[in-house]
């Protein structure tokens, strides 16, 4: 403990510290370049150029992640921790940002949206999300959460002329700030209970003595804040409205990257801080999310709303992993986040393309006969939907499989049964879209435009990832398991100069 305090007062950040947040630095720099260039270039040209710069930024950030991965350890006075876990989420979040930029490329032109800040906001949002996955200090987590949230609030309102988009933005902002306030309150209470905001120290001091009542309240409040971000029931009510109003590529972004980041934080909070009563909180929330999400999706006629409810259900499946044993649950959740990101991004990319100018074609009926008018696009969407159902040969299958496997191994039989039953029932509404596409005659008014190159790239990447995870899940899962093992065992802290101890591996 002495050593840690000494580090605060004397040592300046070393170069290794900067390497450990290199992806965030790179993303910020590119975001600023986009902001600076935007007013300087003529509007017509700026669209493409700024998008390209942003895309380069994400690629550079991927490279930076590789550098970051080479020097694992703590940085900035134990506020940031680079380990397999954070590298995994960095890659995931940056890749999601890259794909969203690709799928926005033509969308912006079609919707006549000025692109400048748009790309910058995606990059800044990614900074916040990436930081969330490596932060191990609650105040830094809060700051990262705010960076990511504020970008998402603005992005949700980007279809400025549409009332629904403004509504989405405002609703997301108001409820979101409320939720982050809960999180912050939780952080403050936790500090009151343990005298620290560092996750490892909190866990240590909670383990040392009897559990203060305040700590329970603190964790519950933090769960409210994070539950909102991942759209878990009962904090999910905002999701359909926001997803309906926000631009489709942004929904693709919002439903994957910030969720992954919030899940990363939740994993740390749940498995490292490790408060006893937490299990029931998660149990209930998981069961509710799965059930309410699937039931809600049944009656939707707007594809974006339908996918919004589906994302609530998927948050529920993911939460099942949180109720499981730490090592198993962490790796299952990581795999799920990756598979869901690939699948859902792809689905929204198709939706965004097909929505056309003003997002006019987002009703379920508009998908009638798509299988005939544009067979390739329909087949791609079908594969994504099958992955969301959890059919073999897609990433979604193994994702669900690992989650339920983790749950069964932790003796959560009832939760597993609720889960598998839900995933059976949930197949129905995805099937409705497939039915529309293949088993109905095409409509005349919905125009079919060829898939632009950038979107094609994005779709190909999502499709490849979905199928890769469905056929050869070993490597990614192995990686997730290795990093989960580090994550829940104390080994990783030995590499750092501090003497912080972490939870014992079998604390639960």
């Amino acid at each position, binding site marked *: 403990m002495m050593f840690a305090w000494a580090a605060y007062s004397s040592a300046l950040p070393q170069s290794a510290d900067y390497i450990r947040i290199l992806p965030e630095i790179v993303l910020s720099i590119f975001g600023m370049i986009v902001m600076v260039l935007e007013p300087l270039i003529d509007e017509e040209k700026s669209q493409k150029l700024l998008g390209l710069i942003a895309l380069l930024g994400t690629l550079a950030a991927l490279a930076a992640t590789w550098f970051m991965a080479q020097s694992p350890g703590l940085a900035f006075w134990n506020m940031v921790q680079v380990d397999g876990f954070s590298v995994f989420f960095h890659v995931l979040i940056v890749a999601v940002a890259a794909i969203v930029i690709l799928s926005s490329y033509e969308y912006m032109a079609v919707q006549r949206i000025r692109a400048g800040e748009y790309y910058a906001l995606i990059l800044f949002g990614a900074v916040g999300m990436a930081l969330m996955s490596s932060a191990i200090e609650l105040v830094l987590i809060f700051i990262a959460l705010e960076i990511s949230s504020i970008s998402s609030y603005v992005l949700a309102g980007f279809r400025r002329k549409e009332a629904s988009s403004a509504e989405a933005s405002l609703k997301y902002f108001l409820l979101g700030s409320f939720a982050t306030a809960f999180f912050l309150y939780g952080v403050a209470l936790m500090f009151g209970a343990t005298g620290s905001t560092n996750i490892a120290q909190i866990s240590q001091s909670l383990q040392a003595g009897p559990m203060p009542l305040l700590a329970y309240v603190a964790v519950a409040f933090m769960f409210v804040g994070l539950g909102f971000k991942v759209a878990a029931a009962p904090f999910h009510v905002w999701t359909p409205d926001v997803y309906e109003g926000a631009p489709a590529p942004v929904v693709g972004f919002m439903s994957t990257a910030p969720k992954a980041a919030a899940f990363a934080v939740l994993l740390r909070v749940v498995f490292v801080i490790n408060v006893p009563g937490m299990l029931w909180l998660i149990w209930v929330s998981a069961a509710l999310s799965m059930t309410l999400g699937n039931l809600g999706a049944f009656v939707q006629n707007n594809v974006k709303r339908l996918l919004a409810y589906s994302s609530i259900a998927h948050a529920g499946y993911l939460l099942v992993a949180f109720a499981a044993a730490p090592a198993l649950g962490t790796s299952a959740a990581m795999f799920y986040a990756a598979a869901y990101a690939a699948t859902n991004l792809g689905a929204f990319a198709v939706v965004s393309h097909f929505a056309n100018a003003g997002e006019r074609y987002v009703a379920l009926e508009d998908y009638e006969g798509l299988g005939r008018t544009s067979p390739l696009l329909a087949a791609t969407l079908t594969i994504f939907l*099958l992955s969301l*159902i959890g*059919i*073999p*040969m897609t990433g979604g*299958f193994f994702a669900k*499989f*690992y989650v*339920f*496997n983790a749950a*069964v*191994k932790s003796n959560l*039989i009832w939760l*597993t*049964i609720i889960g*598998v*039953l839900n*995933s*059976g*029932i949930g*197949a*129905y509404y995805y*099937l*409705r879209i*497939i*039915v529309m596409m*293949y*088993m*109905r005659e095409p409509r005349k008014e919905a125009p079919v435009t060829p898939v632009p190159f950038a979107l094609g790239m994005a779709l190909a990447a999502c499709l490849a990832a979905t199928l890769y995870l469905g056929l050869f*899940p*070993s490597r990614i*899962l*192995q990686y997730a*398991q290795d990093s989960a093992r580090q994550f829940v065992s104390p080994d990783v802290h030995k590499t750092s100069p501090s003497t912080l101890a972490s939870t014992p591996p079998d604390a639960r």
Partner: protein
Amino acid sequence: MKTDDLSSVILTLVTFAPLAGALLLMFFPRRDRDIRIFALVVSLLTFVLSLHLPVYFRRAQTGFQYEIVRQWVSSPNIHYHMGVDGFSMWLVVLTTFLTPLCVLISWKSIHERVKEFFILLLIMETALIGVFTSLDLFLFYFFWEATLIPMALLIGIFGHERKVYAAVKFFMYTMIGSVFMLAAILWLYAHTGSFDFVVIRDRIASGAVPNLPPAAQWLFLGFFLAFAVKVPLFPFHTWLPDAHVEAPTAGSVLLAGVLLKMGTYGMLRFNLGLFPEQSRHNAWWIMILALIGIIYGALVAMVQPNMKKLIAYSSVSHLGFVVLGIFSFTQAGLNGAMFVMLAHGVSTGGLFMLAGILHERRHTYEISEFGGLAAPMPLYAASYLLIVLASAGLPLLNGFIGEFLVLSGAFQDKAIYGILGATGIIWSAVYLLWMYQRVFYGKVTHPVNHSLTDLSGFEKLAVWPCAAAALVMGVAPILWLGAIDPAVHAALNPVAQVMSKLVAP
């Protein structure tokens, strides 16, 4: 030596040859004729490859043959483990036998979206074969679920008026049924650390699985529900008539011929194989459900005005025999159950093809629309008669052997089961022959039927192999039973041990 080399990869070849064909087909230009020919070549090739299995099968040997084990996913511990015994080998051959016939029967009747149709058909074949060959529970579940999509799409895209309803109903029924199986599989993995069927079976048999006794009944039910929906056993059967009536002919043939057998095969392999004790305990109500299925299916079939629905309900009745045979736990009963599966695949597959042929000419399945067809379509009528008699269980045709064995097994178990089951044979003769009489005999009642054309070349190629198989199976059942019997022995052994344990103390 050469055959040994082939034997180690033959299951992989047979399973994935259709899929490879489907993938190639995706890159084909949309020239329908070429696509049809290619699909036929692929399915015939698969059939020829699959003949390797019975030819080199060591009949005296119990246990699995042509096994292949490779690690697929390291953690969880999933293996690419395939192998067949006397049960699954014949079901594989049944699948590969029916698929080329499906291609032939669809030659003319599918003229829109031909490419998609044959791609789906071939993917379907791979998934079906995979179900029968996989010995890793995970792999099994993988293929099991994989059969759903192509079948639902075949029904939903190429079916008749209420196709969407039927496709969705089919999908949801089986999907919800099978998630319980997934839960059971996961439980087994959690407590044994393996998905391997053989490993799990041996662990359970030696009592090395912790916490098994309280859970075993639930696990048994988890598997059983998934299979019972697929069979379909009496209260879960309502998806079947809808799916059959709406499905295109080839879909119906595969659905009745092979897909339903996935359920009975699953009961035989997993319910009986993994949980002999629970199978024994639950046998009484399962047999009652099977008997209800036999009689109820037959009675409902009798009053159907729709030919395809009649055949569909006859499947409910016939599959009841299979379940009855399996849960009688007698040598004869199991042999018979297995034989009924094969015989039903051939004869009902044939019946659906014949119904489809009529539908193509008249676009209706209503029995009242026909009458006196024997005059304009003599060849058709003759083929129909042979297959109807096979299905009704006439001696010297394939239906008789299986049903006889099942009933003698049921008698050994409890006489009342045998007596009630035997009425099913009478019913089936009634509804099938009555239908035959209404369709073929008498005067031609509808003038349009005068000009109906007889079987075309492709249709002969599709129907006659079924008729021939029905005859050969009826005359020389030993060709099939020779391989089935040792597998039955192996399957009954643990049940017998359980029984002796129960009796001894």
